[in-house]
């Protein structure tokens, strides 16, 4: 990291371009996975009477798999407008946490408009790679990843609505782990460096598995988005109490 920082300083002029290009590169596997996931979302949206153009616009500007899934299922139920807002709030509340974490990732001179635009780019995956960016976050990196992944997310939804299931399920199955592969690549290096992170990650795996497999939790029928929020808050708070960070560990 130290070395790459020096390199960045030397190549100050090409920095802007390279951060964007780096974002495009890291956004590529995200885009691949998005297309596969959005395709199946589109298939579901079609059953909920959405047109291809509605699917495209909804996906392009929302970019939230669980949230869109929830809202599209309400379209067909002819639910009230208030309940659509509540559904969007609950299924996407984790973005509030993610954006809060990102506030600490900006250099102090980052203008408000760029902060807001980065905020609009937040998805699980874009957040994941942005927070892993060495040093302060260069907004162009996030924009690069956004500009390749968002069109494919929207196109995937639209194609899914138009075509139904044409991609072989085996290909969809393989592509759908692309996102998780990236998550793994983000959480493992810091786990190797910091034992506290390693233990927090292991605890997350364990508790997440337990919430899906213990009968009395399954019976409560809590959405996976809510489970993610609750576990994130509980485990991160526990880790922060047990092992608070020292200034050296910070960005």
């Amino acid at each position, binding site marked *: 990291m130290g070395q790459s920082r020096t390199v960045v300083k030397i190549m100050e002029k090409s920095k802007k371009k390279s951060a964007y290009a780096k974002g495009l*590169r*890291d956004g590529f596997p995200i885009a691949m996975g998005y297309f596969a996931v959005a395709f199946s979302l589109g298939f579901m949206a079609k059953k909920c009477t959405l047109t291809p153009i*509605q699917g495209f616009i909804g996906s392009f500007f*929302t970019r*939230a798999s669980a949230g869109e899934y929830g809202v599209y299922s309400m379209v067909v139920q*002819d639910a009230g*407008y208030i309940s*659509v807002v509540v559904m*969007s709030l609950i299924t*996407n*509340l*984790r973005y*509030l946490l*993610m*954006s809060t*974490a*990102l*506030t*600490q990732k900006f250099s*102090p001179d980052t203008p*408000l408009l760029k*902060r*807001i635009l980065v*905020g*609009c780019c937040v998805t699980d995956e874009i*957040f*994941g790679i942005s927070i892993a960016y060495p040093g302060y976050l260069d907004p162009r990196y996030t924009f690069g990843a956004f500009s390749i992944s968002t069109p494919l997310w929207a196109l995937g939804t639209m194609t899914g609505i138009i075509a139904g299931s044409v991609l072989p399920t085996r290909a969809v*199955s*393989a592509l*759908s*782990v*692309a*996102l*998780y*592969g*990236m*998550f*793994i690549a*983000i*959480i493992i*290096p810091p*786990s190797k460096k910091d034992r506290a*992170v390693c233990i*927090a*990650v292991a605890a*997350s*795996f364990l*508790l*997440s*598995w337990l919430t899906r497999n213990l009968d009395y939790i399954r019976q409560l029928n809590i959405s996976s988005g809510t*489970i*993610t929020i609750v*576990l*994130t808050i509980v*485990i*991160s*708070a526990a*880790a*922060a109490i047990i092992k*608070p960070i020292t200034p050296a560990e910070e960005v």
Partner: protein
Amino acid sequence: MQHSTWIYILLMILTTNIIRIIPLTLIRGQIKNRFFRSFLYYVPYVTLAVMTFPAIMEATNSPAAGAAALMIGIIAAWFGLGLFPVSVICCMVVFVLEFFI
């Protein structure tokens, strides 16, 4: 009463993006509180870990292929491979294994 699909979509877009923007407009400086700083330090890793497992086993046709992709992905990342290679390796593991399972 018949609701408009476009209004549903508009509400969804507005709500989802407002959630994303609020913290970034309200919190502009460094947070001083040590607990909160530590909390935010752990949040990304915890949240990604929670979302990865066991979901990776539910995303694939065969849960065993997902589990294998997770383990091989962890090994690959441990030895320093980046986002894209780890991602491709995981896809290949699933694609190849599902020939046999």
